[in-house]
């Protein structure tokens, strides 16, 4: 009720709203279908299906940093309810993650940086919102966030993006725990808003690679220290990386595994991307 009372905008005419909507609707009516049935038919026809999430795990209405969240389920479960298919149809879940962290708008962000490193990430990463143009807050990679993202989404694969943005950093930090004012440690983001606000990150330091990874398309061409950083992420999260993005263009990409091939060892079209190496975390790890 408070919203109605505080609303000072123009009054809408119900008939006008309806007529306008109907006019627009007539243009899109050829597109309207029972999409659940359509998706089911596509699945049965033997083609790969991709469910494309929007926003991110920590903006999820249930699992995000409430109330600074969006109004839908952005986690993988949303693909079932919002796409009209059952969970048993899903063969893999890929989580996209930046090599550091950003956030638009308000809300807790324990690894946020307010120094020149944060500025460098914003500048090199061109961190301005695609929808709103708002500058994004920048910070270090946060494995505490990601651990819960792995759990609530059931991540089977990780795609790490914007690795090249970190090329000029001498030291890189990875958040491995949080501490509140009373000295309590947390390995994942706690639910209490009051606690979320005061969390301080506990970091593991890793030397930066201080060389070029921008545009690299072959894993072997990556700087060794960049590889160590990625391996450490895989090791902490226990999920293999399947794609590394090294620049904004489509070709600025290293593809390590075919996410579609996991449960279809044969019978794919043959134009699939071939895995070039086993998952990083099963190989020898370079400890810090």
């Amino acid at each position, binding site marked *: 009720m408070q*919203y109605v009372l*505080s*609303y*000072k*905008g123009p009054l*809408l005419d119900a008939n006008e*709203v309806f007529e306008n*909507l109907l006019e*627009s*609707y007539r*243009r899109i009516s050829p*597109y*309207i*279908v029972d*999409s*659940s049935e359509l998706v089911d038919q596509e*699945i049965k026809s033997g083609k*790969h*299906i*991709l*469910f*494309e*999430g*929007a*926003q*991110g795990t920590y*903006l999820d209405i249930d699992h995000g940093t409430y109330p600074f969240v*969006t109004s*839908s*389920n*952005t986690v993988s479960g949303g*693909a079932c309810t*919002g*796409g*009209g*298919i059952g969970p048993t149809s899903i*063969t893999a*879940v*890929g989580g*996209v*993650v930046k090599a550091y962290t950003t*956030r*638009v*708008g*308000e*809300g807790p*962000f324990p690894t946020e940086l307010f120094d020149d490193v944060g500025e460098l990430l914003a500048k090199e990463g061109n961190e301005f919102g*695609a*929808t*709103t143009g708002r500058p994004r807050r920048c910070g270090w990679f946060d494995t505490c966030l990601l651990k819960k993202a792995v759990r609530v989404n059931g991540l089977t694969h*990780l795609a790490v993006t914007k690795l090249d943005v970190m090329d000029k950093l001498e030291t890189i930090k990875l958040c491995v725990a949080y501490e509140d004012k009373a000295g309590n440690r947390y390995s994942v983001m706690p639910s209490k808003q009051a606690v979320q606000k005061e969390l301080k990150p506990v970091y593991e330091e890793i030397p930066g690679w201080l060389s070029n990874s921008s545009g690299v398309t072959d894993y072997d061409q990556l700087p060794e220290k960049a590889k160590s950083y990625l391996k450490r992420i895989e090791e902490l999260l226990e999920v293999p990386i399947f*794609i590394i*993005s090294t620049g904004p263009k489509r070709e600025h*990409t290293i593809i390590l595994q075919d996410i*579609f*091939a996991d*449960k*279809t060892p044969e*019978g794919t079209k043959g134009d699939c*991307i071939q895995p070039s190496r086993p998952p990083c975390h099963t190989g020898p790890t370079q400890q810090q």
Partner: protein
Amino acid sequence: MSNVIIIGSQWGDEGKGKIVDLLSQQVGTIVRFQGGNNAGHTVMFGSKTFILHLVPSGILHEGTKCVIGNGMVVDVDALLKELDELKTMGVESEGRLFISDAANIIMPYHKLLDQAREERLSAGKIGTTGRGIGPAYEDKVGRCGVRFADIENNSVFK
């Protein structure tokens, strides 16, 4: 035959658009399942930059079917605008884009409410994009939303 979900693992802006764009070369159908035109998927193709807010970025791949799922809320005018923009770039959507009849519609009053609230809450903003997404979902959960399936039935307004 694989059915893969791609989601953002942080607070959005992880670069899902590019990853989805890469993978869409392999798939027959791309399905969006939540949100509305508050997404912003930047896709670079050649020298062109596309920002798609509503239509799945797979629409740029000829032969890929794109679905706006029942879990989404749709601003019809924003959708028409995006389809027109795609058309001027030579992308034909008809026969390739499918919209769920169970998806809820973002009404003009949802947008007005969203903006009015955001202005009212000058401090402690949630940081919405003011596009009526939140109010549209509220009405959906409150069982007074308007779905595409019912749009021609004027009585849903009363």
